[in-house]
């Protein structure tokens, strides 16, 4: 199989405390991989290591054949932080146009990205006046600019209404069908069912690298939450 992201023996410490210990994983190219686990289990730290903004104590992370965070990846890997990282004192359009200029994406992609997150008609609204869910969609739209090969999304669907959440998961699968590799984190186990592959984390370690179907089969549980519990207790 073709891997877009390869993590080998990754060690990360924060404040002298180990957060990730010898974590290894492979992420299939062109798939939507879910990174699931409870809050505080190290999902964000793993994600930050993949996009190259986390200080790493040991091990290696390779993205598209290059060390994570290397300059050549900065146009090909897009990252959406957990809290929306957009400028509250700019309009939606101004935010997107700025990030498009930074990555050198054509201006037309701004409209496409906004349409993809269902904000096409709100471009002139100030981000500071938007709801939390709308802000996180603006943040997501910024990551869609320039058609990145790898999208790393930290809890992009938190607090969104179910219709929108379904639409976004459909969008993630469309992007993967077009060849992008997606890593989507969530602490809501229900979302695991929507992924092609699953990485389950707990207390800084990988509990399972599997698919939703395999997880159900292995644990005999249909409900993802119950399956995760069964797995942890085994």
């Amino acid at each position, binding site marked *: 199989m073709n891997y877009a992201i390869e993590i080998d023996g990754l060690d990360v410490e924060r404040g002298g405390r180990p957060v990730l210990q010898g974590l290894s994983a492979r992420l299939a190219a062109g798939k939507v991989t879910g990174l699931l686990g409870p809050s505080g289990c190290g999902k964000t730290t793993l994600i930050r290591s993949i996009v190259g*903004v*986390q200080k790493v104590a040991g091990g290696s992370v390779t993205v598209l054949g290059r060390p994570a965070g290397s300059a050549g990846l900065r146009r090909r890997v*897009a990252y959406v*932080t957990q*809290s929306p990282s957009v400028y509250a004192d700019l309009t939606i359009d101004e935010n997107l146009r*700025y*990030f498009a200029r*930074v990555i*050198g994406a054509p201006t037309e992609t701004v409209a496409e990205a906004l349409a993809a997150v269902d904000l096409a008609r709100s471009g002139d609204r100030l981000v500071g006046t938007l709801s939390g869910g709308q802000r996180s969609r603006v943040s997501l739209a*910024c990551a869609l600019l320039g058609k990145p090969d790898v999208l790393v999304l930290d809890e992009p669907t938190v607090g969104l209404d179910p219709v929108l959440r379904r639409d976004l998961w459909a969008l993630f699968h469309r992007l993967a069908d077009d060849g992008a590799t997606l890593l989507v984190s969530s602490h809501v186990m229900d979302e695991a069912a929507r992924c092609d592959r699953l990485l389950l984390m707990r207390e800084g370690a990988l509990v399972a690298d599997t698919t939703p179907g395999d997880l159900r089969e292995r644990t005999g549980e249909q409900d993802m939450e119950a399956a995760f519990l069964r797995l942890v207790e085994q």
Partner: protein
Amino acid sequence: MSPRITAATAARVLQQIRHDRRTIALLLIVPSALLFLLSEMLGSVQFDRLGAPMLGMFPFITMFLVTSIAMLRERTTGTLERLMTMPLAKLDVLGGYGIAFALLAAVQALVTSGFVFLVLALDTPGSPALIVGLAVLDAVLGSALGLLASAFASSEFQAVQFMPAFVLPQILLCGLFVPRDEMAGWLDAIASVLPLTFAFDALDAVAVQGDDLAAVSGEIAVLAAFTAAAIGLGALTLRRRTD
């Protein structure tokens, strides 16, 4: 570093400020109001001596504060982390901020000096254009120091306190309150390595003694060097990888 991205960043910072009308009003009006107060307090003879140096102090102080808070917000809202995953150099960020606030400072200095020369009728043997130029340079220095200071602040509370911690001592020691040759030796020694001292010296020389550009080129070079050093150190404190 790319001129395209630096320019885009500067334009974005100015766009942010454009949406904040009250900040613009404060930036443009407060220095003039304070100088009016000063002129009323001092009378015209004293004001002719202190008005021009103060013209350099206000943009320095406001730009230091505004820039350090703006940069801190960039760090704390996660936008800096996002930018650090993008194809942009650290100097694009700092340069963008520097250019944006320099332009803002130029407008501030023009408005303030227009008021001081035309309405308050400041009388100086020096060139008003050179005084305005020095005021802009001081503001750019304030911005650069603000960018650097913001690296050491993890909250707005800390950032605003860098003003009394780093800026006030420079104002006290620069020669504005007590001429430097009347200070204790050790105070004068400290003053002689602080950037604002050079800013005061240059403004004082032009406004009071009527010196020209060539006569203050040494001070200008030192101010430019401090600005470059602050931006350079700022780039070093900006990390792509953090804990």
